[in-house]
């Protein structure tokens, strides 16, 4: 990355350095428009934009299969629940490095925080498609009082807690990422201040994450009759929290694998053996946590005395999740650590991520309203919008990683240790 040191003086110079990354604009745009990845994702984005118009002119009925019995579908089940769980990497790595002093993982902090920030940001974007009146999103933050003149703080609602936390945490993650942005823009003084804030922000971020990851599970405590008893448990906040930590760790592993393929020029200086050691270290933590999670889930079944339900179709499905997507990845991670095989750990991270997605979908969609005969299945437009939102996230991630010091240390700002 040819970063010009010193701040560019004209906006043209700024554009050339910061946006075109010192390529000729013609070459830059030619490359943008001819890459197969861009063409495919470009089509997805065009379709998504059209569907966005349809969603906000024709309503939810025209774009989703939601009903009065299934008020939440793919956009909540996947975009929000899975999005938040898988974006937990930022807080997991952040707390490991800054709180528990595991400094050897520091090269993972920035990519993890960027994923966390963008993950949450696009969770909110996805949520806006699902909300009936998304422009009222600021109501629970106090805007409701200003607009309606009456109290609009639903303090009895777990959703209120989730909403506030996601808003504050989004800001915190933005602050945590600011140093990278200021390094990119060569703002030395701002960066110095941003770093001061980073330390406090990390601690605050850990608290916020712990609270809302579990609160997302607590949302379903009110739906006792609707979530299948094998998935419903008073412990569901604990389940959501632990599985989110595992999901965050696995996403960090998975992502570092992708980054090494996609952005290899930026990680050229990384020692592959050290990268493998980090991945194996994360795999070890994930394995231990998955085992804890596996045991706790059974305590949940025992607590509700639902053993008889295991011998039903939903019970078999529960066993598939528990053994295929919790115990199996747990053992594979352990095996990968034992054999010091980073590739096995990387493979397992994919399986684990799928397992977390399966769990969130099971709670919110697949087993939801399990005793009704009518089942909800998302309409193609719901899938298309979800893919659209994820693609927007990928584009933003790529744009930032290509320009800002995320995967490498900025030459002008060496880490001081």
């Amino acid at each position: 990355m040819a970063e010009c040191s010193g701040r560019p003086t004209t906006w043209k110079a700024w554009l050339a350095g910061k946006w075109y990354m010192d390529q000729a604009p013609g070459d830059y745009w030619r490359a943008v428009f001819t890459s197969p990845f861009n063409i495919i994702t470009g089509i997805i984005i065009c379709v998504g934009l059209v569907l966005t118009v349809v969603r906000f002119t024709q309503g939810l009925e025209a774009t989703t299969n939601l009903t009065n019995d299934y008020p939440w579908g793919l956009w909540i089940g996947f975009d929000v629940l899975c999005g938040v769980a898988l974006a937990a990497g930022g807080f997991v790595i952040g707390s490991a490095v800054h709180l528990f002093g595991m400094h050897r993982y520091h090269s993972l902090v920035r990519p993890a925080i960027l994923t966390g920030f963008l993950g949450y940001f696009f969770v909110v974007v996805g949520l806006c498609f699902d909300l009936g009146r998304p422009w009222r999103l600021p109501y629970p933050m106090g805007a409701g009082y200003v607009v309606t003149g009456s109290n609009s703080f639903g303090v009895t609602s777990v959703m209120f807690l989730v909403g506030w936390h996601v808003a504050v945490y989004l800001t915190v993650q933005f602050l945590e990422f600011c140093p990278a942005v200021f390094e990119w823009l060569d703002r030395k003084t701002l960066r110095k201040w941003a770093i001061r804030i980073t330390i406090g922000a990390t601690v605050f971020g850990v608290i916020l994450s712990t609270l809302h990851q579990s609160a997302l599970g607590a949302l379903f405590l009110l739906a006792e009759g609707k979530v299948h008893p094998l998935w419903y448990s008073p412990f569901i906040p604990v389940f959501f929290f632990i599985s989110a930590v595992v999901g965050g760790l696995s996403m960090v592993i998975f992502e570092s694998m992708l980054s090494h393929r996609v952005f290899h020029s930026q990680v050229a200086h990384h020692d592959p053996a050290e990268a493998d050691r980090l991945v194996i270290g994360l795999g070890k933590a994930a394995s231990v946590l998955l085992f804890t999670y596996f045991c706790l889930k059974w305590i949940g079944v025992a607590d509700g005395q639902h053993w008889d339900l295991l011998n039903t179709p939903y019970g078999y499905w529960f066993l598939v999740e528990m053994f295929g997507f919790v115990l199996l990845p747990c053992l594979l991670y352990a095996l990968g650590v034992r054999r010091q095989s980073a590739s096995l750990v990387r493979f397992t991270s994919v399986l684990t991520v799928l397992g977390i997605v399966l769990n969130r979908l099971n709670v919110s969609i697949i087993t939801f309203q399990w005793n009704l005969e009518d089942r909800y299945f998302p309409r193609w437009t719901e899938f298309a919008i979800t893919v659209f939102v994820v693609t927007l996230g990928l584009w933003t991630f790529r744009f930032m990683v290509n320009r800002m010091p995320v995967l490498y240390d900025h030459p002008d700002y060496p880490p001081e240790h």
Partner: protein
Amino acid sequence: MVIVNVSRRGFLKKAGAVGLGGSLVGLAPDKAIASEVIAASDDSMGVLVDIPNCIGCRECEAACNEANGFEVPTEEELKDKSVFAEHRRPGPHNHTTVNQFPGGGDGVEARPIYVKANCFHCNKPACVSACIVGAFRKLESGPVVYDAWKCMGCRYCMVACPFGIPTYEYDNPLTPQVRKCTLCSNEGNPNKGGVPACVKTCPKECLTYGKRNDLLARAHEKIRSEPDAYATHVYGEHEVGGTSWLYLAPKGASFEELGFLKLGTAPPPLRTERIQHGIFKYFIPPLAWYGLLGAVMWVARPNADAAMGKAES
């Protein structure tokens, strides 16, 4: 929906577990919040539904639609019994439905049983507790009402309601609302605050409007004086902490056969509100935790300069 029968002991056990879970979402204080679970005031109004008296004429549906400005079925449509072929639930454009269930008794004497469905107007409503902007309110006089101007359309109220009552105007792109029976207390309703339209119109004295306490006394009096006519349970007396709508079933029929859910007596919001109270009323647990983590960090960092360097990476 699931049949949950939460015994008192089972509930306490679960409440304890939630306390444990709550320590993640912010330690739940042990302080009982029972005071907030108590039914609305003594003057709270409700409706007693005498199911054995219902003849399935659906006049209440027509009256409700009219009072709320929905499309009103014609006399012919009301006579058409084929609507009973499938189970209908209240929707965004009809707040109440009458469904038919096979009756007890033998041979020619067997006659179908009709059950009116609508919002129960719970004493401790899950929909009120769930709403992120407080768009749902339980009035002291009984009704559970909705302020459309606050609602942002997250539909958590629909997820939370144990009876699956609230419905949504999915077909409305810009100003969708949650819709449900208002006990005729909504603005613009000609019966606002008085006897509900459905009660007024019922030709068979199947519906009685009155103070909930009086209705309960009346229900038990009926059970006592006509033991051959009524089942002994009053649905809504204790379910989910009590509801404003109360139901009497015919002898020999169980409420479950009539489409009622078997629910515990504990109000569902009890659990989640413990957690919320822990956080918003006594901000201590999160603050204590913040302090603790801060301390850990302080100890973990070798010296200020090095920590600065690491923080940036």
